[in-house]
């Protein structure tokens, strides 16, 4: 793991000192060692703050979407994991990001740890998370510690990941990790939800969306939600989504996000991790991708040549009445 970190620093330093990028986006340690946050590095002297470990969950490609770069025409270096690279490919498919202005460092990934799962084990604050082999050690502020097996802490979409290596990268931070031979997607825990009755589903959704505060974190954290600053969720004309905050309108709010990223969203889970009230958004987005795969054999963001599913059609699409 640390050799990937060293390689990221080396590649970033080279790109910055050669003047190929204005800034380089990677990950760094947050305010204490239990957090990893996005890092924006402007000079080769600062690359030592870049880190790589299984807490580096942020999908940094969201900082490439329109109106995010500062200045707007900046040339940007960016680190991507396998899933992140798929959102980048989705952006490139529609030319929403200028290929010429980005330098992509791909980081082969062994899976990302769900920090919230650790947090829930303690009433106290977790201030340190460290990794040794497959053992994860968490320490609280009061000094209590607990060990976990890394495999138990991985995000659902990491457990079922078929693309651990970046799809699109200018340079790699390590040799590709072994990939599953069978690339048939797996859909993880959504089956449990699928099995519920309509009334049970409705109740579960109501419970989850009742707490939504409409902070737009899901939409702004999403790399492929590109009209983020002009979102119809905020519009009063059309008034597709009511501004009244209640369960139904909150679900409608999320439906806008979901249907508008269909065909571009590879279920990277950025929205889910950004949600401050922990609404299980991955359920909806993975279900959507499952159905898309079933309908069209389509997986978002796995080919630069392909168009997103809803920007094209086939005369003989195998569904609907003829």
């Amino acid at each position, binding site marked *: 793991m640390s050799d990937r970190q060293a390689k990221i620093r080396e590649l970033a330093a080279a790109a910055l000192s050669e003047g190929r990028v204005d*800034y380089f986006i990677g990950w760094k340690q*947050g*305010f*204490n060692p239990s*957090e990893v*946050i*996005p*890092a*924006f590095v*402007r*000079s080769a002297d*600062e690359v030592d*703050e870049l880190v790589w470990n299984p807490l580096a969950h*942020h999908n940094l490609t*969201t*900082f490439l979407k329109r*109106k*995010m770069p*500062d200045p707007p025409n900046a040339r940007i270096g960016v680190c991507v994991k396998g899933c992140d690279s798929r959102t980048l490919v989705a952006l490139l498919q529609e030319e929403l990001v200028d290929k010429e202005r980005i330098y992509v460092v791909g980081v082969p990934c062994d899976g990302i740890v769900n920090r919230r799962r650790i947090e*829930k084990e303690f*009433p*106290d*604050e977790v*201030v340190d998370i460290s990794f040794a082999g497959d053992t994860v050690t968490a320490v609280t*502020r*009061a000094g209590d510690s607990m060990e976990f097996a890394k495999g138990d802490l991985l995000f659902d979409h990491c457990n079922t990941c078929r693309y651990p290596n970046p799809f699109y990268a200018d340079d790699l931070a390590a040799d590709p990790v072994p990939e599953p031979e069978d690339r048939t997607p797996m859909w993880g825990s959504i089956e449990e939800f699928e099995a519920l009755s309509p009334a049970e589903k409705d109740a579960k959704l109501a*419970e*989850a969306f009742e*707490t939504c*505060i*409409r*902070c*737009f*974190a899901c*939409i*702004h*954290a999403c790399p492929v939600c590109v009209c*983020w*600053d*002009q979102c119809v969720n*905020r519009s*009063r004309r059309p*008034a597709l989504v*009511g*501004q*009244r*905050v*209640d369960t139904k309108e909150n679900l409608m709010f999320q439906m806008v996000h979901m249907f508008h990223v269909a065909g571009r969203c590879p279920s990277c889970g950025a929205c889910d*991790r*950004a949600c*401050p*009230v*922990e609404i*299980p958004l991955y359920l909806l987005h993975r279900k959507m991708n499952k159905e898309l795969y079933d309908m069209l054999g389509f997986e978002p963001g796995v080919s630069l040549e392909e168009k997103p599913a809803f920007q094209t059609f086939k005369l003989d699409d195998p569904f609907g009445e003829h």
Partner: protein
Amino acid sequence: MKFLAQDQLQAFLGHLAGESRVVAPVKGDDGVVLFRPWSPGTEVELDVLLAKQSAKEFVFRQSETYLRYGYAMEGEAAAVVDDSHEAKIAIDDPAELRAAQDAAVTAHATLVAEPVNDAPAQVIFGLRPCDARGFVQMDNVFGGYGGFYFDPYYNAKREATTLIAVTCRDPRSTCFCTTVGGSPDGTDGVDALLTQVEGGYTVETFSEKGEAVLGFSGLADASTAQTLYAETVKEQAVARVDIAFELEGVRENLRANIEDPGWHELAMRCISCGTCTYVCPNCYCFNITDEMVEGQGERIRTWDNCFNPIYTMETSGHNPREVKSNRFRNRFSHKFWYYPEKYDSLLCSGCGRCITHCPTRIDIREVLSVMGAPRAAAAPAATGEEA
């Protein structure tokens, strides 16, 4: 000082619920702790220090209807929009029909508008002193302080609300209440304060509303040992909160640094969502919109925030805070410069929620230690990492 035994807690809440709605931090099935209306038998979560959201929602509603109105059709106008099978006025052209309907709605309708202000008595139980202090800071804005307007919606709920806070035993590393003049055992805005001691809680009251809760028969007088224990808990808690930045001079420095390029650097990882403002116990900005269905409408106010990219966008398309870093600057400057200038107080109680819930963990302490301190002209890029 009174003492409430742990096994009397449910009875105490039940007693409070007899007269008003009780709101308390409750852990959901998904492990998320939020303030929710309490019902008998529900376990109150006091071990997790801070609920995910502050309790402000129960006084300053996330969305609140403040005006209802209705257009009632009369005579000829009613005939135009009559949806019975035999409309009395037949208009074939859909565009014309639509125009006639529109005209009917606005032209000949009787408009009835009625104000709405619903404020049942409630007790917010189990909030922390920083949350209570957040209300005090919002009071300035909504309470007509300093010659401004008096907000009847906020104040109706505020006056009907009793705040029963619990001393923070185990402040988090993100807590910085003492930096901004608060304390883990602060009493600003607190009607009654509970402090966890062995076997229960000591109870202190600081207002008439607070004294009203002493009517519960299960309260005992606190022993000297319990009182001393509570003092120790408080002292230890205070010692565990670090001073995060130097408050002196922040306002002047923010003013001096307003055009500093450091704002761009700090805002780089901001995704411009509104999480920090919505979990904040004292961010109070809002939007006003009209919602109308079938001639019946409501004017509602909804939380809004300065990170919303269209928050300041004008009809012409001109946006004074078009750039992300300008919106970012507004939040921190508002809390530590704009608001203090108007109300001579701070708009931050140091709960640290904005740090822990920010999707990219933007740290208000870092922002203030960088931008609230003197900056050299043409300062280099900010990389300040909070210790």
